[in-house]
């Protein structure tokens, strides 16, 4: 039983080869508790963990599945970030990406989406590509703008919140399903090359095998920097249009967690979860003459400890 390749339903095997670019971001994942560094207004680095933005991981997975299905083409990763971002690139290469370009920038936290997308577009414009994938948004800042800016600066069509991808066997055209509100879906057609930003439900990223992890260690990462891209950017330059000035953690609210009774059979547990844990309130119709009803009501109030 291999991992199911339910995504990317190709009507016919084709000799299409696609070069896919996936832009990823390494994000800081904070769990429940953190402190704010008063000087920078950012999160205190102690206790931070770094992960590949989960949406981006889905984009990488999708690119690899397309490549595996077509039996050809290349998946190239691009990231912008400090030296630790290399970890994210290696992890995605372990998933199966072929190449990576690292736009090295220690102070990347201060970049706004516009500068980021300029840098990415610069790098991309020197590459051959049929498809550019992004995660729908980064879970740390949740802006979700970079994909659109990149499409804009490369004059490409963009489809956001992609939940399903189909390729026409004949030429470079796709049918894309995307998410609307409340689970609605819409299907659109789009010529390639294009930019897609992907939704979580598109696929489930693989857990890399050991040989793949090993192979990823020896793959080449090409390094560049904002400077060498001709974006002579330093802190405070007008390139950055928005700047972080404040940050406040959410108020802690008591969490209501649904826990199905573990003794229930599986299907009932599933029903419970699917229904959002709604339990029938169960009402009772009191019958009898007014006197009887009145006494029953009193009983009930006593029983429920209301009076």
């Amino acid at each position: 039983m291999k991992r199911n390749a339910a995504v990317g339903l190709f009507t016919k095997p084709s000799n299409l080869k696609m070069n896919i670019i996936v832009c990823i971001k390494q994000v800081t994942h904070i769990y429940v508790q953190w402190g704010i560094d008063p000087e920078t207004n950012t999160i205190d680095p102690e206790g931070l963990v770094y992960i590949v933005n989960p949406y981006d991981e889905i984009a990488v997975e999708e690119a690899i599945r397309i490549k595996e299905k077509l039996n050809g083409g290349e998946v190239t990763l691009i990231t912008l970030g400090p030296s630790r971002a290399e970890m994210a690139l290696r992890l995605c290469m372990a998933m199966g990406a072929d190449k990576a370009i690292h736009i090295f920038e220690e102070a990347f936290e201060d970049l706004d989406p516009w500068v980021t997308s300029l840098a990415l577009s610069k790098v991309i414009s020197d590459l051959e590509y049929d498809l550019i994938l992004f995660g729908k948004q980064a879970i740390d800042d949740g802006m979700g703008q970079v994909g659109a800016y990149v499409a804009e600066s490369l004059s490409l069509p963009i489809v956001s919140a992609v939940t399903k991808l189909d390729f026409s066997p004949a030429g470079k055209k796709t049918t894309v399903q995307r998410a609307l509100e409340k689970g609605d879906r819409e299907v659109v057609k789009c010529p390639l090359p294009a930019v897609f930003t992907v939704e979580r439900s598109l696929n489930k990223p693989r857990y890399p095998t050991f040989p793949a992890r090993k192979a990823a260690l020896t793959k080449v990462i090409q390094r560049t920097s904002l400077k060498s891209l001709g974006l002579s950017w330093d802190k405070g330059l007008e390139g950055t249009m928005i700047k972080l000035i404040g940050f406040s953690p959410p108020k802690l609210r008591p969490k209501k967690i649904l826990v199905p009774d573990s003794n229930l059979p599986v299907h009932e547990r599933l029903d419970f979860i699917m229904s959002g844990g709604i339990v029938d309130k169960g009402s009772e119709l009191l019958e009898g003459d007014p006197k009887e009803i009145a006494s029953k009501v009193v009983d009930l109030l006593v029983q429920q400890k209301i009076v």
Partner: protein
Amino acid sequence: MHHKVQPALEHYLGIPGSFITLFILIVGLALFFYIIYKRYLLLKSANPDPRFDSLWRRFYDLIIYGIFQKRQPRYLWIGILHIMIFWGFVVLILRSIALYGLGLKAEFILPFMGGSPGEFYHLFKDILEIIVLFACIAAILRRAISRPARYEFKHGKAHKFHAYLVLGLISFLMVTDIAMDGSGTLLGEKSDYWLPAANSVSYLFNGLGPDTLKTIYLWNYWLHILTLMVFLNYLPLGKHFHIITGIFNVFLSKLKKGSIKPPRWGVENIEELDSLGVDKVEDFTWKHILDFYTCTECGRCTDNCPANIVGRPLSPMEVTLKIRDYAYESNPIFNLKGKADSPDQNLHLIGNVITPDEIWSCTTCGACEEECPVFIEYIDKMVEMRRHLVLMESRFPPEIEKIFRNMEVYDDPWGMGRALRTDWAGDLKIKTITEDSDIDLLYWVGCAGAFDDRCKEVAASLVRVLQESGVTFGILGKEERCCGDFARRTGNEYLFQVLVRKNIEILKKCKVKKILTSCPHCYNTFKNEYPQFGGEFEVIHHSEYIAELIKEGNLKLSKELDKTISYHDPCYLGRHNGLYEAPREILKLITGIKTIELERSRDRSFCCGAGGGRYWMEEYGKRINETRIDEVIEVKPDIITTACPYCLIMLEEGIKAKEEVSGELKALDIIEIVEGTI
């Protein structure tokens, strides 16, 4: 003794008897060694396994468990029968050699077997023959009439026939030898002693003429030595190979329980390996293949396997038998069917012979290994197959992917992160060990103690007891990471090694010498597995440590506790590390406590169901922990105590699921009982 009839001097169709004996001997032995050679080839193709260390210990085990068969009477009656047959066999080997000698050369006598030693041996073997015959018949009847369920082989060809055949062959050997001696007696082979078997049989032959007696003698002689040769050649073909391999298997048994074998012996860095884990027969080590050869099909492992008992699709015996059957079929001794028909030698075991469900059902509790009379190993094999699934194919129960990722990113299976690791300590004012603190004792909290709400209480309780006793100790705080037990036992060796390296680095940096753990899994991993990576520390479990404190008078227990308490042995404390006494001692040292042992306790303890990563996996159908609680209910204690956070959680959940005891029966860690009586 003087032999009147000399098989060596007889002639059959003009061929002298000595020739016939020689022929049987040469053909028989050639065939036998050829079969052994074939079996050896498969063994040789397998992976390395160093098993020739600690020779004294091995000889000791050989004598205790091999020669004296110490594990046999764990199943009392059949164990005694087996010992009878085994010892009879050992003694009768001499007789067999002597009989072959007699067939080659008239008047043959083994060295030192002339005169009275020979006479005495004759008496001894005569008595043993009766005993063996009796034991074989008893064993046959037992199999035929009471049919113990543990012999069932559900998912493969029945092997029962082999058991009957071998018992029959042994009985036949006894009968022919006794008949020979019986007729010999009448022919004038007088012994100094009254031989119970031979003399009794001779009454049956009374009145027969010398020619008839001679014929009886010779027929039984030839049948005997021929059967012996058939028997010898038959051994390596089925479960009775253990008669030959059993002794070796005991001698070569795994000495370091509790530790999982490295992916490849002799390879330190797994990055040098292209493939990890087991999916083909030759991926196992040669010792594991010897295990397959050796299994006696006694079913004792399965009979004690918690996964099997609750109806999970795992029977350790069947795992062995299925792999053995496949190994024998794909490596035939004579390739009669021709290449095309013989089964694929490169078949993937997982999926074709063994199902992933079987592999994932194992809790690595070690009950099977503890029970096996010939020391067959299971945990390493299960973990090796998991390694293949996880590391090579990325196939595992979906629930544990999250756990793997949690450990990778947050360094703990709960996925809480190091920032939250010390929250449990609250305002207990525990010192943190750093590079330049000189605290000798490190309390390793473990992920359960740090993150699980119930186990946090246990950790806090231990800290209060330590503080009460004036012990200086510290914790690593946010620098502690998962010890890796779960990662290793679910086959994620890569993740395990990443965690181990990080932990060893910080422990060395802080110059930690002595580690106190409250979790038997951390305990076991530090004690038995970290040394594989250069992490040598003195490790002590809190039950041991607290027992010491009480005995030395550093901890005074002043209150009484008027309760009946049962102790549940955690697998990783008991079976894997032999630590059975300390918790029981603590209970004895508290006044008022009445202890009552569970039916399955100590080395036969029943797993709580959480080991081997099972804690994180879905359980379908009947639950192991609830089955355990049923056993607890049977002895009716007020408190069930244990010394492992996972056992505690599992027992507690088991109690909650049982309405009849929920609220009455309490599950506590041993340290909570101690704290309550200070």
